[in-house]
């Protein structure tokens, strides 16, 4: 398989460099189009008014926050089983993006909650489990930064994310049951209202934009990590931006 060639940092570094502008440009174009449709074309919601438009940021960021953790867990499995250094570097590159998206989802959720629910924060099951997801990201980043030996940090981080990903469904359901136990029927995030086609379109385009952005940023960051880790090697000394 020719693809396996790129599991070597020295081969992946130039490839990532070539891919970054493409994903970056796609993120920009999709973001502009998605925001335009979301903010100007999509109709006003008859119940919530203009406030609802924050979902075009909120929902895609929440999706990405969860999805990136799963991607990290997948890389973690690769890192532990195949001992590929690049997988662990990808985890390290993805973690800040995932954490930022999770934080953004919470932040935009709070901004949306104030005018619609009348409160910035409710201990709703989804909000609480998103908050816990943010804690998991912070734990991973803290652990990887605290261990000085990079090889050990990679593996420890991989194991932590795998253990965390096994726990994510348990945490989600425990929080959900806890919530129903305490609050009864209070606020439902997924009110059964149907979305207009343009709203759905805008949201999907924004989700794609977030994907592209995540890939572009993660590739940028992984290039920096590769350079930092491999700075003593011959191939790094020979590439032109280093020379």
């Amino acid at each position, binding site marked *: 398989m020719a693809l396996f060639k790129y599991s070597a940092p020295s081969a992946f570094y130039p490839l990532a460099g070539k891919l970054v502008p493409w994903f970056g440009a796609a993120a920009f174009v999709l973001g502009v189009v998605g925001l335009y449709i979301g903010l100007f074309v999509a109709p006003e919601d008859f119940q919530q008014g203009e406030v609802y438009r924050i979902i075009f940021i909120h929902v895609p960021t929440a999706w990405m926050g969860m999805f990136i953790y799963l991607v990290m867990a997948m890389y973690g499995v690769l890192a*532990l089983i195949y001992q590929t250094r690049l997988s662990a570097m990808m985890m390290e590159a993805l973690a800040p993006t995932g954490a930022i998206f999770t934080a953004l989802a919470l932040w935009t959720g709070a901004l949306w909650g104030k005018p619609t629910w009348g409160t910035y924060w409710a201990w709703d099951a989804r909000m609480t489990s998103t908050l*816990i997801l943010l*804690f*998991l990201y*912070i*734990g991973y980043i*803290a*652990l990887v930064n*605290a*261990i000085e030996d990079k*090889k*050990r940090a990679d*593996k*420890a981080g991989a*194991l*932590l994310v795998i*253990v*965390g990903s*096994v*726990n994510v469904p*348990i*945490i989600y359901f*425990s*929080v959900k*049951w*806890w919530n129903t*136990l305490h609050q009864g029927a209070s606020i439902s995030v997924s009110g059964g209202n149907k979305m207009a086609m343009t709203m759905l379109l805008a949201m999907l385009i924004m989700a794609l934009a977030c994907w592209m952005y995540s890939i572009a940023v993660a590739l940028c960051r992984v290039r920096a990590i590769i350079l930092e880790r491999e700075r003593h090697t011959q191939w790094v000394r020979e590439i032109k931006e280093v020379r």
Partner: protein
Amino acid sequence: MSAANASNAALPISAREIIPEKGVLVAARRDLALAMRSRGELVQALAFFVICVSLFPLAIGPESALLKRIAPGVVWVCALLAVLLTLPRLFQSDYQDGTLEQCLLSPYPLPAICLGKMLSHWLTSGLPLAVLSPVLGLQFGLGGSELMVMVVGLLLGTPVLTAIGAIGAALVLGVRSGGMLLGLLVLPLYIPVLIFGAGAVEAVLAGVDPTANLYLLAALFLMALVATPYATSAALKIALD
């Protein structure tokens, strides 16, 4: 791995045959003996638990209805923190004096040794906490059946705290500011235990059947029992690599 096995077989370690499962008992007995030699540490964790719980009425006020309402949560959160503080004891000194490396080389499988260490840790941390908890519950005005459920919940839940904590304790071995980091890693993973444990007592308070919560705790316990020794031994191998 196979080379190591072959050299092990060639060594005249002992005439008797090694039963892998016995590693649990061997490790547990050794750790218990060590724990019994420093009883002060055990008492410290319990004292921390008691002090921590007693702070809440002082902060919130002596209103008995409110105290009764928050009692399950307070006792469980304090139990969580008390167990968290004892976690470094699991591997720290063994890591520093090289015993862990010997454990890795021993003919007993590492997951069995990990399970033994967890067992000993629970006997010296979670079990005393559970036994002590009714006294604290009484301070908060909990009645007989509530206390009963609280003890059962703690008996089921604290082993999970030890088991998940063992993974975290193994991951942060030899890391600067490991104690703080350990809390960061482990506390989010403790949330389900906290929810079901405190939920069981609250169910009794609310006049609902608490068995669902207790069953869920038991399920967590069984899952932890099966999975965490392997995860912990993987984490130990990473730490000693």
